[in-house]
């Protein structure tokens, strides 16, 4: 889901992981085919039967889920504890596009990913790789937030935010603040926007905060060109390590990532997170089941787990807004402490449509390299 620089290493990691996991046993044969076409828990004969089938498979392969991303460490651990199924988490730092590549390259092998966690742009163009599945909490998810058959489903979104080391820089109150001398060589975004969704969102956010709109992100590109000309743009891909070491004192990223850094750097750095007043930007990540999942029942049980109250609250705890939030607030099943800490979702939340994202990406492909060189 997140783009990282060391592709070769990621690929090697995937290859290694395949070699390793292929040594372990895969799902029992027999019902595998039926499991692979099941579109709901009923198709298994109820939720308990689904759990049983998944436990018989014993394993689940996930990909691109960093432990520090939206609480995935706790979510994976919880799944293992609740159902006694081993989760093999491979290549946590690869991009959404690489998830699909891994599914293609590893097709038919035990180490192939069972489930995906994808940015919307990749999800919408990769539906051939997905198997439709509707979770038990399907009705809670607004219709425009899911594919009608359940090929992909919106899961959680953050808000674009600015994380900063309060000991190194003053609190930014507007985008223009970042152009000042206090921020010389200090402002980074999470990856290259022509490659990574979170970084592209940072540019879109700059556009929305300035003169631009979801249809016109040119002012966002211009802002970063200006930031670069001022010597304030830091062309470095921030990681938990660069934040801890102080290499990247100001980082545009999704709120759940910045909040995770705040928790991780407790006592080391005074990492503060701010969402600027005015328009906010969100972008849902999607869940999908690999149509060729080596553990089809476990993959479907993972979906049930992901969209359960427990996990939706875990996302919220990490600062991400889960897709069932409205329904959970109504039903009173929401983790109120977490909601209070994160704040009610903004009224002024903008999400780019698929077409707008595509147009924004095309503009970035054309202009980004020149803007920051």
């Amino acid at each position: 889901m997140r783009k990282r620089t060391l592709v070769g290493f990621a690929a090697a990691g995937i290859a290694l992981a395949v070699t390793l996991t292929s040594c372990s046993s895969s799902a029992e044969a027999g019902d595998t085919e039926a499991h692979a076409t099941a579109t709901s828990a009923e198709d298994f004969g109820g939720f308990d039967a689904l759990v049983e089938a998944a436990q018989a498979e014993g394993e689940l392969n996930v990909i691109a889920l960093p432990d520090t991303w939206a609480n995935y460490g706790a979510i994976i651990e919880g799944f293992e504890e609740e159902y006694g199924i081993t989760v093999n988490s491979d290549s946590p730092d690869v991009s959404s596009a690489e998830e699909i590549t891994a599914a293609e390259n590893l097709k038919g092998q035990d180490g192939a990913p069972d489930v995906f966690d994808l940015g919307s742009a990749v999800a919408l163009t990769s539906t051939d790789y997905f198997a439709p599945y509707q979770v038990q909490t399907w009705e809670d998810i607004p219709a425009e937030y899911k594919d009608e058959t359940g090929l992909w489903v919106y899961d959680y979104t953050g808000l674009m935010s600015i994380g900063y080391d309060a000991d190194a820089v003053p609190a930014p109150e507007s985008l223009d603040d970042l152009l000042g001398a206090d921020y010389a060589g200090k402002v980074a975004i999470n990856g290259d926007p022509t490659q990574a969704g979170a970084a592209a969102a940072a540019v879109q956010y700059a556009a929305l905060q300035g003169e631009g709109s979801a249809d016109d992100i040119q002012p966002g590109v211009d802002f970063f060109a200006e930031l670069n000309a001022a010597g304030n743009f830091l062309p470095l891909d921030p990681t938990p390590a660069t934040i801890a070491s102080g290499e990247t004192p100001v980082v545009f990223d999704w709120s759940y990532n910045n909040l995770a850094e705040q928790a991780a750097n407790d006592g080391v750095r005074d990492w503060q997170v701010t969402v600027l007043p005015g328009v906010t930007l969100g972008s849902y990540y999607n869940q999908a089941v690999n149509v060729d999942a080596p553990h089809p029942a476990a993959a479907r049980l993972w979906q049930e787990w992901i969209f359960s109250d427990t996990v939706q609250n875990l996302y919220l705890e990490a600062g991400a807004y889960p897709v069932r939030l409205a329904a959970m607030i109504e039903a009173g099943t929401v983790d109120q402490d977490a909601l209070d800490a994160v704040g009610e979702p903004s009224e002024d939340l903008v999400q780019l449509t698929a077409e707008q994202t595509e147009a924004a990406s095309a503009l970035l492909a054309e202009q980004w390299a020149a803007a920051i060189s």
Partner: protein
Amino acid sequence: MTARRSGGRGWALLGLTPFSAYVVLFLAVPTVLALGTGFFDGDGALTLDNLTGLLEPAVLRSFADLLWLSGLTAVVGAIAGALICFALLGTREDGWLRTGISAASGVLAQFGGVMLAFAFIALIGIQGLLTQWLLRTFEVDIYEGGVWLYQVPGLILPYLYFQIPLMVITFMPAMSGLKPQWAEASATLGGTGAVFWWRIGFPVLAPSFLGSLLLLFANAFSSYGTAAALVSQGAPIVPLQVRAALISETVLGRENMAGALAIGMIVVMVVLMTAYSALQSRAERWMR
């Protein structure tokens, strides 16, 4: 006699087979496959879009930046390396200094990629030892005008770090091939040191110097790991454009552009090799 000779040739061909098979399987086939993708779109239909994509301003700029980066580090590396070789001529051939330097060069020439990038980040990163020391002791901020380590100029130092040792190991044999008798002969005939180098030293060394220079250029031209670990923004050089085309999650459907970029890189190398062989045959003319 004839029969024996043709029999010998059969054996010779057989002996060549493992190597040929290896080259075909692990060099030729992957190259052809990779280049081939440049001519197809995502659905497998023939297209020239990827090739015309090479003319996009961002791609052209990445070629230009890669050319000057490779050229600069090759020329500086070659000259610095040659000077080190020259200095080593004054040491004993089996002495600890020369063997030590050539052993170290052998290691450092291969010291690239993530390790090298990390070494430079630790030394001259924003929180690097040297950066902070300069800042605290002399109040000199090497990043006053912006953080250049993570952009193309930041690649010059790391690239030189492996280019110079590579020059030393490839050029040292030629340098030590300069016979002392030639210098003595030149001196006997009244030649000065400058005359020796101008009339004898440089012409003798020119072919291997040019060869080493080309090797250094190709080495920087195709280098990926170091740049990938250091530069994360803007894909400013071609190998990083290849990465962007393959893994982008925002600009989709450009995977086959990577093949076209590879074609572009090969074209550049072919042009250079042609120019090199023309130059080489001129440089070697006196030897015939």
